[in-house]
């Protein structure tokens, strides 16, 4: 599975467009991390726990998208975009989408 946010893969041609595929995950941060983050808020600086959490969630969103693409027989996803939204207090949604295609 080739993942890219370009519109084409150099040196390869698209034989079939299979439409949009997407993956999303909603994650909440746990209280322990939140307390530490509250302390960090006095001193400033990076919140490593959140960085890690968001990175993990984004990887999960990508893997869900890849699963969907595999199920419809694609071998590459082009033009991938990420998006983040906070739905409710303390939880955020990570969403990723792209175009599933078949390359030769």
């Amino acid at each position, binding site marked *: 599975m080739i993942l*890219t946010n*370009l519109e084409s893969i150099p040196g390869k041609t698209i034989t079939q467009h299979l439409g949009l595929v997407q993956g999303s995950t909603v994650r909440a941060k746990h209280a322990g991390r939140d307390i530490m983050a509250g302390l960090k808020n*006095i001193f400033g600086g990076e919140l490593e726990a959140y960085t890690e959490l968001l990175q993990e969630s984004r990887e999960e969103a990508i893997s869900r998208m890849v699963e969907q693409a595999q199920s419809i027989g694609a071998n590459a996803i082009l033009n991938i975009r990420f998006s983040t939204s906070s739905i409710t207090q303390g939880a955020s949604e990570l969403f990723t989408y792209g175009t599933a295609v078949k390359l030769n």
Partner: protein
Amino acid sequence: MIDLIILISLLALGFGFGQYRENQHYKSIIKRESALRNIPAIASRHLPTEFTPCTTQLVCGNVVISIDFFKQFVSGLRTLVGGRVSSYETLIDRARREALLRMKEQAATHGASHVLNIKMETSSISKGQRNSIGSVEVLAYGTAIISEG
């Protein structure tokens, strides 16, 4: 009275540590930026023909940075009169540059020569919450070009 003492000591702590950490962070950003200058990040969507043949790899870097108590207080005062909120400007600037650097570091481990089609996304992860943590997340992503031969 006790409240005032707590407030002042929090402000002093925030000012001291916040300023120190910001300076340290800027130093490390500038150092790493010059080390990674050989991998240009390009915002173009199309692949220049001189790169082919090559393989591609999606790379991303993210960072969550929190504001310190002193800056939060100052920006609160600033909203009374309006104008530039310079305390938040440096926060966002640091977050963006750090996210780009992490993306480039990931590209470097794959042995990439360029990173194309850079997209940046900024979001505040604890919006609309009472006693919210003033923090911002920046994600930078792009396609790393790995030349063959």
